[in-house]
């Protein structure tokens, strides 16, 4: 049966062509491996293209005091200590080199007056740290990697949807999927597979994520025996557009606040000064005058509270709305017009100017924006070895948003692009080295047959099979918003799990019509099934975690609980059911422990 299917043999198969996938592919190819990259969209359209703010790396070009230690400490603090300390260390140490490599591959970053890469401030980073390209950093990053991959001659399979991983014994043996343009199945035999499939934000209605973010990697990993960690921690970016409704959720870059934008409620109050958590009291401007001095470039001033971490700002906006001080369309006002000149805004935030002018008929150089939280990023993901990014399934690697560990309970802005570059590279190098001399694995025909039957199933004309995938997706989004949203409690989460389980029953009978050729309804059948499974992982982890920490807010347990301070929840599948384990977060090595303790001590002193 398998010989009828278009089959490719490769050393390393990379699933996903965003920043992580392309980095991994280039690095694996540099090890001498044959590499194939598969992506659901056209090359160059992955969600990385949307990244606006920049890449966090302690180059120290603007503030020479910055170093990897400072970046490590900021990342750990932003992640509420749940970060894998080795990943956080590797990330902080290697990101400057990855940024320089990107520059050597042709990326043109904004410059300092000395002709070096300029760095901008961002929430939670104590120094100006984000290398950037106006507010189009993601576009420059993906185009640079795309051009590099093309120049390296890496095979790219565009508009190809991978739905199943293949395994021989315990190890990964490849993957199969279908060409979207004609629906024909395609099979890859490979001793190493790197999942770089991005996030899961399309399970929420209000989301900044593109259609591709359907948890395919999370779901495939679970089904094939890998583990997911930190799944309770879904990042809601504080500033998504709220109006018009058709663009609700579209991202407004944190760069607006980095450039001096302030948040106001309906009464015109700059409310973020009222929401400074005790942990950050010493590191935020005491009043508007100090914040203004910081914006003007005073190195002794501390940054404004608008640049607190995303979890804090998102909750503050929600609270203002809940207490009746929301903006006209139910958010907060974000004002840059009165903080910076029109020319400055045009130069620093051109994409934002364009976005608001075209989509909301608002000139942000003249009037404030309205913003509210939008689902943006998954901190949790597949558990990986911090050095190699290999999962618990031999030969299966994960990097980028689909992997967990680096960000803990909350990700700092700018740490995503650096994550992609650092751990995409690490996964590529490790996989490339591991496959040297490896044989192409044999593929088990029964797995392939099951896969082929699964592809055809939605076209079954059995009258019981009548569930519309678009309806099911809309219901999933409603359930996630209502019961597994930003503010959570046990009752809601339990109801959410029940609803998700019922959706899981119904997805068995999801139906497609017509032919396989570029058929969005048919493709959505697989995407919705993946999102429901990953949604259950989120809901279970959120219910079990009886505390509030980072992006996870429990109304019934509103404070962080020390007993949870070093616990990560691990989700796996056992006999087709979601299973939860409490595991200890890896301890930082001694040197890192001392750094963390000293940093905490310094802050206590500052207060």
């Amino acid at each position: 049966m398998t010989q009828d299917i278009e089959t490719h043999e490769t050393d390393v198969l990379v699933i996903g062509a965003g920043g992580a996938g392309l980095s991994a592919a280039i690095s694996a190819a540099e090890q001498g491996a044959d590499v194939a990259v598969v992506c659901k969209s056209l090359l160059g359209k992955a969600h990385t293209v949307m990244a606006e703010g920049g890449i966090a790396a302690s180059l120290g070009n603007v503030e020479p005091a910055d170093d990897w230690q400072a970046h490590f400490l900021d990342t750990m603090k932003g992640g509420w200590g749940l970060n894998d300390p080795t990943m956080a260390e590797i990330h902080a140490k290697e990101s400057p080199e990855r940024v320089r490599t990107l520059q050597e591959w042709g990326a043109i970053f904004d410059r300092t007056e000395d002709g070096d890469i300029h760095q901008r401030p961002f929430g939670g980073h104590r120094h100006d740290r984000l290398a950037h390209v106006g507010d189009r950093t993601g576009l420059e990053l993906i185009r640079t990697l795309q051009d590099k991959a093309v120049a390296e001659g890496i095979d790219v399979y565009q508009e190809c949807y991978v739905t199943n991983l293949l395994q021989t014994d315990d190890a990964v043996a490849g993957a199969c999927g279908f060409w979207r343009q004609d629906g024909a199945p395609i099979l890859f035999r490979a001793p190493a597979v790197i999942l770089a499939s991005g996030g899961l934000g399309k399970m929420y209605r209000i989301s900044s994520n593109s259609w591709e973010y359907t948890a395919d990697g999370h779901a495939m990993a679970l089904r094939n025996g890998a583990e997911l960690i930190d799944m309770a921690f879904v990042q809601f970016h504080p500033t998504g557009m709220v109006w018009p409704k058709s663009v609700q959720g579209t991202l407004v870059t944190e760069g607006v606040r980095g450039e001096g934008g302030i948040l106001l409620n309906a009464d015109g109050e700059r409310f973020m000064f009222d929401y400074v958590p005790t942990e950050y009291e010493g590191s935020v401007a005491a009043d508007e005058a100090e914040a203004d001095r910081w914006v003007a470039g005073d190195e002794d001033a501390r940054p404004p509270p608008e640049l607190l971490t995303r979890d804090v700002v998102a909750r503050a906006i929600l609270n203002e709305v809940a207490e009746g001080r929301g903006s006209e369309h139910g958010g907060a006002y974000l004002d840059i017009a009165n903080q910076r000149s029109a020319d400055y805004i045009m130069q620093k935030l051109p994409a934002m100017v364009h976005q608001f002018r075209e989509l909301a008929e608002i000139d942000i150089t003249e009037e404030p924006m309205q913003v509210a939280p939008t689902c943006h990023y998954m901190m949790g993901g597949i558990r990986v070895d911090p050095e190699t990014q290999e999962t618990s399934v031999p030969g299966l690697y994960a990097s980028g948003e689909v992997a967990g560990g680096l960000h803990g309970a909350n990700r700092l802005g700018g740490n995503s692009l650096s994550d992609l570059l650092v751990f995409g590279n690490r996964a590529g190098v490790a996989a490339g080295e591991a496959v040297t001399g490896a044989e192409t694995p044999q593929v088990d025909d029964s797995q392939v047959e099951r896969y082929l039957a699964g592809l055809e199933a939605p076209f079954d004309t059995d009258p019981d099979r009548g569930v519309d995938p678009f309806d099911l997706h809309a219901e999933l989004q409603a359930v996630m918003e209502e019961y597994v949203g930003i503010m959570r409690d046990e009752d809601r989460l339990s109801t959410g799990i029940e609803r998700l389980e019922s959706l899981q029953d119904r997805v068995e009978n999801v139906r497609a019509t017509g032919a396989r050729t570029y058929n969005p309804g048919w493709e959505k059948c697989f995407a919705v099934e993946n999102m429901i499974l990953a949604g259950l992982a989120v809901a279970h982890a959120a219910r079990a975690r009886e505390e509030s920490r980072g992006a996870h807010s429990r109304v019934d347990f509103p404070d962080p609980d020390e007993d949870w301070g070093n616990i990560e929840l691990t989700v796996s599948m056992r006999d087709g059911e979601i299973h939860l384990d409490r595991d200890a977060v890896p301890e930082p090595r001694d040197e890192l422990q001392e750094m963390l303790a000293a940093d905490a001590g310094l802050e206590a002193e500052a207060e």
Partner: protein
Amino acid sequence: MSTETTQTTDEPAATGVEESQATAEDAVSATTMTLEIYRGDDDVGELVEYDVPVEEGMVVLDAIHWIQANEEPELAVRWNCKSGRCGSCSVEIDGMPSLACMKRLSEYDPETPITVTPMATFPVVKDLVPDVSWNYEVNETIEPFSPAEDADFEFYQEDVERAREFRKCIECFLCQDVCHVLREHDKKESYAGPRYLVRSAGLHFHPEDTADRTEWMKDDAGVGFCNITRCCSDVCPEDIEITDNAIIPQKERVVDEYYDPLRRLRSWLSGLW
């Protein structure tokens, strides 16, 4: 190919926009607009009419998504970011090459159906999805970024600004679509099209690039085929002055290099285009 197969008789409601979420049930009460969308492949197809309930701020892509979710789950369209950043949802709206995510329905006359068709310059895969693979083949002919071995990557914001215009390109291929050398004359064998002259300009203006792509411009890209109608600049969603700032300078460079010894000498001396 213009049979209208679906026709509903719902009258547009007289009372403005409803706040409720657009669903099939709301269709009667909300303001509706009619879209005529190409359904079919490269050989056979037709314009099919759909009535879509309209909410304030809706863009053409929202209307297409409403049709997918409520009437035609098989309707094929490319999209990703839905905010004008990725260049996926390129179509022709009333014949005008456009990003479907950036065109608000309120820009169009509510009494006249809006036609949405795939980019005409490329073969149709299905409905609004064209086969754009030719573009990726052209891209591979361009010599990639080539810094000097000892490049120090020290350069300044004014250098960045010179390259930036061309690096804003989101590869939507609308310029390729509208270019009559490709669209009417189908010179894909001879002419790379505006997108790739923008890319070579972006590489040329990279402060550390050392490659000379003049021969590529002349022979592979066929820059001489452009006769400066500026249609590409008109449709560019990123407002890149493609003809004036990317194509004409490359035409001049080819002329300097191959056809005008005096200017070639002058150019060589000044080190400028």
